[in-house]
């Protein structure tokens, strides 16, 4: 069924070495338009490192990261700075929440609009009509995003005062403000209670359906992953050990072993 869908992200043989340690070992992965793909695996499997390579925080040792934006020519992301990657249309959230604590919730989202707007220093000083219009448009669209993730009531709170689950949702809103066509979520459900997780599940589905944003997520919550993701990629010790639909993954002996191995410690 994937045949006629547009391929957005193509990672080929991605390898990341830290000194002698190979954290990611020739991983190949693809994300198609409309996908909610998941990357799972035991702790320390190299999932977050993989994300960091794609988003430009690390420069991978080997392999290709190719982005195929719709209607634009293909871009190779290797070695690009994180801000360039975001400009290309690939946004992310962080495993250990990285909000701007002393900015309000709304301002956090407004930061996401930065790379899609362009008033410079002089314009900011003169504050002409066009600048004020742009500012207002930033505010409106950010507020709109807050409504979408259900944080509109907290718009003027400092983000550090938000409850944990809300902070995670704010990170998603902030990432969405950069107008991505692919969103990388690093353990969005970590630390959430079941109610919050189920809200999050709906939110992710909504983003995928309504905004035409493809999603690649790292997650440990198997219920969430099995409910919404297809395809699922499994990593262990830096290597990709399996990929496929939830049913295929569930029955894959390698995956079972990787997880059971972890549980028995």
């Amino acid at each position: 069924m994937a045949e006629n869908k547009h391929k957005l992200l193509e990672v080929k043989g991605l390898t990341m070495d830290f000194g002698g340690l190979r954290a990611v070992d020739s991983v190949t992965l693809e994300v198609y338009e409309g996908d909610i793909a998941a990357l799972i695996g035991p702790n320390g499997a190299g999932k977050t490192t993989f994300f960091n390579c794609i988003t430009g925080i690390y420069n991978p040792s080997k392999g290709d990261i190719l982005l195929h934006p719709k209607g634009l020519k293909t871009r190779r992301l290797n070695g690009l700075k994180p801000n360039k990657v975001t400009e290309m249309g690939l946004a992310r959230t962080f495993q250990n929440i990285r909000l701007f604590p002393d900015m309000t919730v709304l301002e956090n989202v407004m930061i996401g609009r930065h790379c899609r707007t362009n008033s410079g220093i002089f314009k900011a000083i003169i504050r002409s009509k066009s600048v004020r219009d742009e500012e207002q448009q930033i505010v409106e669209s950010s507020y709109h995003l807050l409504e979408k993730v259900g944080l509109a009531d907290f718009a003027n709170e400092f983000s550090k005062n938000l409850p944990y689950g809300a902070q995670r949702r704010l990170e998603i809103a902030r990432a969405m403000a950069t107008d991505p066509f692919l969103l990388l979520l690093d353990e969005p459900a970590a630390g959430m209670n079941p109610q919050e997780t189920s809200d999050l599940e709906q939110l992710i589905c909504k983003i995928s359906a309504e905004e035409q944003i493809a999603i690649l997520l790292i997650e440990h919550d198997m219920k969430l992953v099995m409910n919404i993701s297809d395809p699922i990629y499994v990593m262990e010790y830096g290597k990709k050990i399996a990929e496929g639909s939830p049913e295929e993954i569930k029955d894959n002996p390698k995956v079972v072993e990787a997880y059971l191995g972890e549980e028995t410690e």
Partner: protein
Amino acid sequence: MLKNFKQSILVSLWFVFLTFPLLAVRVNTMDQVVVWRWMNMLWVAIGAFVLSYLWRYMLARQQVRKQVADEGGETRSKTQLLLEDMSFRYKAMGVILLAALVFPLVFDTYQSTIMISALIYVVLGLGLNITVGLAGLLDLGFVAFFGVGAYTYALLNHHFDLGFWITLPIGGILGCLFGVILGFPILRLRGDYLAIVTLGFGMIFKVVMENWDALSFGPSGIANIDKPSFFGMDLSLADSTIYIYYIMIAMVIFTILVTTRLRNSRIGRAWIAMREDEIACVAMGIDIARTKLSAYALGAFWAGMVGVLFASKTTFINPASFTFMESAIILSIVVLGGMGSILGVILGAFLLILLPEYMRAFSEYRMLAFGAAMVLMMIFRPQGIISNLRQTYKYKGSKEKINNG
């Protein structure tokens, strides 16, 4: 109760021990006598005893406040709430402006001169506030930009007879330029390396000015710099002071206006975001290098500009005016006032410059107090005297909008 008492006694004894050789003994090697100053020890003992109680009390209070904040309680003080009220702000600004305008007419030249220095520090503080307060880049060599401005005017005036008004923007732009030149090599550095390199830059500036006689006339400095001209008229000393005072007021207003606009702009938000979390900031598509450079350049701009005014006010400059201590004073203004808070920085400048001026008896304790205040502020009130106010925005469906429409 008894435990606290015992602890305070111990602290007191400890500090007596600690300060003993330096505070109690003074060796006069010329006359071969030792002066014992036992009274000092008594003061230290009493002081340390009282302060240790205060210290514990303050720490406990801070703990309570942190708890309140964690439980989502109101942590803003009454002043803060008052300051967030726009109508109050406008009224207060009107009163202050009026007072500022009549000040030189009411008070004598001496008072105006003091006020001018305070205003110079306001502009310096607001400039550094962009770099340190908003963008979070610690700059310990800020005074160098001030020096660049001052020397720009002094040299252009000396060699080419250029006037104050022409040089004013040139000084600002040169300050800016130096900001960028300094900014480039250190873009990749982490916060604490940045501090030490900027400190080095400030020192290099002073050393070069002291030794490059052909350019700067060395330690003897440059004298007879023209005061600002007023349509070609020769002003008396008193009139000229008043004139400079009004120029300074205008410059402060201009600075406040521009820095406020910058802070509330797209660029300003990027600065704050960078201060809060650089990695998240870059992941949001913000070009860190450009944002850092702009913060350096715009901070330095004000220092360069006000440097021109400083040279024209004193009519004499030499490298001794641009020491690390000046950078430290400007930094303490920003830290004590409240990093990022424009109102706080203004208040901080007045407090730190006027207080030692009017309390002459204590002026030798000035730097001691600044140093201690920096430490205490970081521990007990990191947000400064006046913390950064929360910015609220109007959007469709919000209450403000309904009220206004």
